[in-house]
């Protein structure tokens, strides 16, 4: 008896909650504890351990498969360093401790979507540990979620079951695609916090270009651990809900799980919730039992004997650090510092910061600028313009959607940066509900070499302008032909002036060079 009492009190003392309890009117007296394992597909052209190109959802099945992906006897893995770099970016963005030496392990289970009979993952020594992610919560102070670890691993093949014919179909195209498993500590206390965590994580992954982070398309998948306990008690037994593929479903699954577990604890005083792995039914919005703890498979983890140790030099980590694209909160902080008037209007700022979502993330971390950088530059312009017009940020007539589209136009080179500034000034001066693209076409700002404009005719317009410049500056053209490279800038400057900022300087430069050379050879 005394032993029992002591154990309970020890347990209570041992558990130190990093969060203070806050009553939730939906389940008064209950504390909800949530941890999330996220599987994010790495946005790399090639798979994690083979040179096969990664597939997209629209590709026909089994078209991206090499002998290694299909686990042909005699094949061996080879680490794709691009995937490692993207995982490093993620690790640095999540303020993790990067392991100078990490290693790969095999996780064994028999399932037709796992061609080798094991998945290569990082069980014993992951690439990064001990990070944090700060989550902004509406009308509340932000929370910090600790990141336990990030591990690199292979995605499985996709299996689909046709209930009509009772056939299973395997698509090996996805098999071996790189995943980052990002494991949080159990630091979230409500379905809403869990939702905010996943959304923030998505924005980070997209900002650093490591993943599309798209739950609907399956490039981001979540397993959620949920437990409930009475206020002041140590945490309860957790249940894991597998394979949630939208934030909405995840929040619904947690909500149902809280109800289910607290009902169980009320009905069975003195008992703990049975530890289970559960699924989520998207029609009933309820979780259901997949397997109990007793049925949990033994994955027989074993160090992969082929891949050895993944050694990361200090230099490589430093290089990734230096080239890390700006993170959403960094841009936010910079803007707030420069424009103190934005304090108190952070909500609007967050809306604008979200213009980045929905945009395509480039492969292998290329084109590292990305929309967020254009966003930052244009926001500076916006705020500068507003200041010049003596208007406040909240009084600005430009909607977040219009501004977002404007950023898009610049980012996909439909208009040049110079034209972007012009367009912004015009739209602020002439408020209207029309889209930025409409206004841009009306002002004739669509860039000359833009692929999204009417291709050939626009580029011929650039050609005409360049030809005109060469004709207008015959001595400069002759000097360039004679080898004076500096004079090229003068000719390009002429083109830019005549195009009223619609020409891209680089394209104009290439065109002028080409025209002069062609002239030479003819």
């Amino acid at each position: 008896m005394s032993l029992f009492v002591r154990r309970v009190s020890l347990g209570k003392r041992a558990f130190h909650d990093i969060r203070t309890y806050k009553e939730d009117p939906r389940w008064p007296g209950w504390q909800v504890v949530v941890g999330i394992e996220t599987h994010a597909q790495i946005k790399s052209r090639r798979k994690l351990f083979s040179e096969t190109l990664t597939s997209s959802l629209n590709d026909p099945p089994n078209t991206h498969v090499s002998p290694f992906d299909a686990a042909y006897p005699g094949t061996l893995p080879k680490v794709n360093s691009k995937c490692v770099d993207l995982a490093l970016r993620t690790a640095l963005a999540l303020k993790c401790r990067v392991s100078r030496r990490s290693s790969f392990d095999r996780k064994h289970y028999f399932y037709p979507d796992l061609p080798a009979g094991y998945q290569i993952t990082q069980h014993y020594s992951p690439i990064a540990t001990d990070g944090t992610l700060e989550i902004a919560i509406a009308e509340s102070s932000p929370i910090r979620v600790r990141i336990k670890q990030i591990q690199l691993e292979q995605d499985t093949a996709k299996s689909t079951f046709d209930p009509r014919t009772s056939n299973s179909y395997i698509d090996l195209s996805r098999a071996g695609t790189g995943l980052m498993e990002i494991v949080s500590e159990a630091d979230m206390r409500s379905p809403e916090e869990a939702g905010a965590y996943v959304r923030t994580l998505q924005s980070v992954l997209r900002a650093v270009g490591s993943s599309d982070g798209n739950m609907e398309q399956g490039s981001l998948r979540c397993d959620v651990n949920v437990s409930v306990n009475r206020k002041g008690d140590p945490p309860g037994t957790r249940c894991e809900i597998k394979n949630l593929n939208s934030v909405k479903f995840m929040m619904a699954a947690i909500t149902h799980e809280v109800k289910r577990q607290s009902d169980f604890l009320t009905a069975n005083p003195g008992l703990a919730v049975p530890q289970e792995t559960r699924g989520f039914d998207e029609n009933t919005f309820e979780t259901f039992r997949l397997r109990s703890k007793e049925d949990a498979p033994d994955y027989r983890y074993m160090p992969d004997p082929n891949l050895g140790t993944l050694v990361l030099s200090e230099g490589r980590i430093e290089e990734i650090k230096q080239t890390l694209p700006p993170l959403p909160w960094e841009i936010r902080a910079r803007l707030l510092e420069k424009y103190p008037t934005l304090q108190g209007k952070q909500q609007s700022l967050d809306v604008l910061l979200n213009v980045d979502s929905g945009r395509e993330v480039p492969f292998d971390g290329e084109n590292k600028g990305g929309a967020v950088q254009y966003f930052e530059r244009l926001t500076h312009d916006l705020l500068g313009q507003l200041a010049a017009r003596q208007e406040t940020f909240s009084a600005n007539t430009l909607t977040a959607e219009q501004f977002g589209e404007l950023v898009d136009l610049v980012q996909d080179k439909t208009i040049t940066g110079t034209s972007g500034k012009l367009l912004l000034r015009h739209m602020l001066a002439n408020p209207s509900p029309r889209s930025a693209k409409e206004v841009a076409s009306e002002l004739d700002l669509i860039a000359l070499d833009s692929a999204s404009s009417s291709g050939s005719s626009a580029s011929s317009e650039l050609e005409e302008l360049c030809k005109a410049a060469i004709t207008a500056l015959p001595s400069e053209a002759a000097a360039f032909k004679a080898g004076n490279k500096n004079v090229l800038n003068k000719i390009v400057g002429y083109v830019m002036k005549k195009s009223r900022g619609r020409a891209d300087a680089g394209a104009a430069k290439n065109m002028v060079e080409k025209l002069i050379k062609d002239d030479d050879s003819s």
Partner: protein
Amino acid sequence: MRTNVITKRCLSSHRFCTRLYSTSSRARHREVISAKNASVNAFVSVSEPSSSHVSRDGSKGLPLSGLTVAIKDNIATSQMSTTCSSAMLQNFTSPFDATVVELLIQNGVDIIGKTNCDEFGMGSLNVHSVHGPVKNPLGLFQDPPEERSAGGSSGGSAAAVAAGMCDAALGTDTGGSVRLPASYCGIVGLKPSYGLISRWGVVSYADSLDCVGVLASNVEVTQRVFERIAAHDTNDPTSAPQAIRYKARQQVEELFPSASTSTPSSKPTDDTSILKRLRIGIPQEYFPAELSSTILDQLRTLIHTLQIRGGATIVPVSLPTTAYALSSYYVLASAEASSNLARYDGVRYGSYEAPGPETDLTKTSSVYARTRSVNFGKEVKKRILLGTYALSADAFDNYFLQAQRIRQLIKNDFDRVFRIPNFFSDQTHQNTRDTNTETSQPKVDVLLHPSAIRTAPLLSDSESESADSLSAYVQDVLTVPASLGGLPALSVPMGVSGKEGFRWPVGASIVGQWGTDELVLAVGRAVERLQAGRCSS
């Protein structure tokens, strides 16, 4: 002076190899195969002489032109099936050639066929094969004929060479699978340093131990083939980088300027000169009670010859962890095997066996279980079960991790006795060096010990042995440490065993530090030369 039949056999084929390379050799080897293979059972498939990669005229001037080489059936070939001697892969043809096969073809080799082996390389007698056991050709063509084991698991490769069916053969060696059959069949077998020869296309048994090895009737042909296939391969993540291959070779060159010459045949008289600077270690733990006394006598004679006639320095050394090597090996190899063989389940690979009518089909495991029970042989199933257990959550620390620790101790043992440092080892390298200064054990260049504890056993005995299965494992006791250490080990015939009439061969093993394969081969040539001199005198 007793007549040394075996050495004569080797010598005659040596002469034959160097003089008679010609396009006719491939036809002749095929003739021998059709005459003898029915009884020897070395080949499981033979290529057509006209097949695309074989007789191109353009391949005439290549380094290995005219050489016929057989490939163990667990090495992938796109022109012939790759069965691994398993019912599971009986109808499997790989869509690609292994890197070693590609390299051989590029160098002008005639790939003559695929050779029998123990299922997935598991066994030491080549009796665990869906194609049936390999019979040692040395016994079959004697009077009276005897059915003896060719050794395993590369028994088909060894028998093919010994029977004159090819000039050389590739085998794989995970714990002795090249050296043991070489010893039983009276030929030369090299297990190179781990990581020198690409494993791309080699069907994995235990990746951390698997090595492609070369078997031939003499050291010279062994070396010629080895030199052509020991190349860095980006498809194999365990392939040793150029830089450390070079480092190890440079060390050998500094100590033994004559060993590194890659054209040994140019100055055959110098073959034994290397011995004068050589320090040969005799590891005291490699003489277990099971070692036959005649083999011990033969090794003594060889040591004496090397010392007196060759001028080598003989140094007794101790490798104290050797006693644990076999346990460590079987835990690690079985664990890796259980992982590597998981893919053969009848759904992806392997002939599918429909489950019985009473089977509970709601469990996926029961769908696989029948195929795996029916299509894997007894030995493979035993090792999968052992390995699966060793990896289970409850056993992992006591079995797998312990075995890995022992493996490290065995590597440390080796690093302590060799004069040349181990350039392939990971971070532990520094530590071993430190302990070096403490112990004052004299350093050596190579180790020398018997390749096996006995000569080729009768196949009839080996059948009863399977019941008492431990004795089959004890055979591996002398070969497994070099595998765990990733070290080069060469088995060369020691001549006759026994005093009167009984002429079964046995090999001597020469083991060197990682990457010193040239040195090991040079010592092997010296051993060949001295023994030839001895019997001709």
